[in-house]
């Protein structure tokens, strides 16, 4: 049977690629610390020795559009091309082609449909930076087959926050029931407080550091009740007009499980938005062996 070896939740910051590769005068002052934190975060995935990556993200009006907008969509294709002209233009992101794991795509679609999620699918999906940013940060070799899963956090009406947690729980169950003897990691990216195109964008910090502090705490503790009691589709407008991307973090909380503490937590306060990185090891820390349980491997602060 498949083994879920790591659950990873992260912000996706399209400027990381350019910042981390810039040299000389072009290299921003925060780049070295950012790279250092990313390399530590990357080691948490590497240690889990995954064979397959399930990648949860959200299309930013690249392939999915308002004339035909799915709420939850699973890619099922042998390959996925990546990064669009306007991402290359604005963020300097490279063109990429990632292999797909079609058997797992088919399994997630069939079992997800049977479990009560009417998932849409795509057999020709050009993925965007919500999926490629974590490939760049966490698996820059881009050598593992993926299953992309897109959520709509972008074009209202959106699904309710609790549905994101429930979908995460379902993805966990579906992976656990996959008969292939492969090691699976689930990586999902979203946002903490974020403003795009409004008065609070591109400030010295994220638009709502207090929301960010609470959000990191909910995620790190797997606190479904605390999160769901304070987060609604309406309330997510308050920390910043693009904060609905936090619901992808809620999905990853669902994958990790209720009240399951993250084994690795790190944050980085940047201009415009706070970065946050979380790793759970469902079967114990790979460094400390399968009986390590909830022992923390590293919690840099």
């Amino acid at each position, binding site marked *: 049977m498949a083994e879920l070896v790591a659950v990873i939740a992260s912000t996706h910051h399209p400027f990381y690629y350019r910042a981390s590769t810039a040299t000389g005068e072009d290299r921003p002052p925060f780049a070295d610390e950012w790279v250092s934190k990313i390399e530590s975060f990357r080691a948490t995935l590497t240690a889990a020795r995954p064979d397959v990556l399930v990648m949860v993200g959200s299309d930013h009006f690249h392939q999915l559009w308002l004339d035909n907008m799915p709420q939850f969509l699973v890619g099922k294709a042998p390959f996925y091309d990546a990064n669009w002209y306007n991402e290359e233009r604005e963020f300097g992101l490279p063109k990429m082609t990632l292999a797909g794991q079609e058997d797992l795509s088919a399994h997630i679609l069939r079992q997800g449909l049977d479990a009560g999620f009417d998932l849409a699918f795509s057999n020709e999906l050009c993925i965007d930076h919500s999926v490629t940013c974590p490939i760049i940060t966490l698996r820059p070799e881009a050598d593992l087959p993926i299953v992309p899963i897109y959520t709509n956090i972008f074009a209202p*009406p959106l699904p309710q926050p609790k549905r994101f947690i429930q979908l995460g729980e379902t993805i966990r169950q579906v992976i656990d029931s996959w008969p292939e003897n492969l090691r699976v990691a689930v990586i999902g990216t979203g946002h903490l407080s974020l403003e795009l195109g409004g008065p609070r964008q591109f400030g010295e910090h994220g638009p709502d550091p207090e929301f960010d502090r609470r959000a990191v705490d909910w995620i790190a503790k797997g606190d479904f009740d605390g999160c769901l009691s304070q987060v609604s589709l309406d309330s997510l*407008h308050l920390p910043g007009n693009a904060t609905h991307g936090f619901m992808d973090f809620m999905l990853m909380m669902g994958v990790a499980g209720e009240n399951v503490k993250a084994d690795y937590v790190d944050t980085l306060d940047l201009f415009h938005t706070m970065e946050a990185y979380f790793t759970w090891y469902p079967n114990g820390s790979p460094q400390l062996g399968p009986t390590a349980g909830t022992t923390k491997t590293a919690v840099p602060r």
Partner: protein
Amino acid sequence: MSKYLLNKFLYTVDRDPDLVERYRTDPVGTVEWWEAEMAGKVLNSIDAEKTTWLKFTEAERTALQAHDNVTLFEMGAHPFLTLTLFIALFERDHGPLEYQKAYAQAVSHVTMPYPDIAT
């Protein structure tokens, strides 16, 4: 009002490098051409398949032709689309993050709740 059509303009221009430059240099002509030729195009189809009823209001057409991102925000155009396209149009004329910060300042009079972006 058609927030959908405003978004469709921003979306189709932003993803096409030739249209980005055309809209930067000739906003009046580009919007006029786009509304006549492209507004009704069913995006996943041949040109002959047309939506017959989509058109801008006068205020929407004027906002697009004036490169008026502030009015687009007030109208509830999707802020990600507006921001991304306008960065493509005008960031090149400014220093690092200067345009993005000025953009925030230009819409700073808008208080929460922001204009509804639902389509």
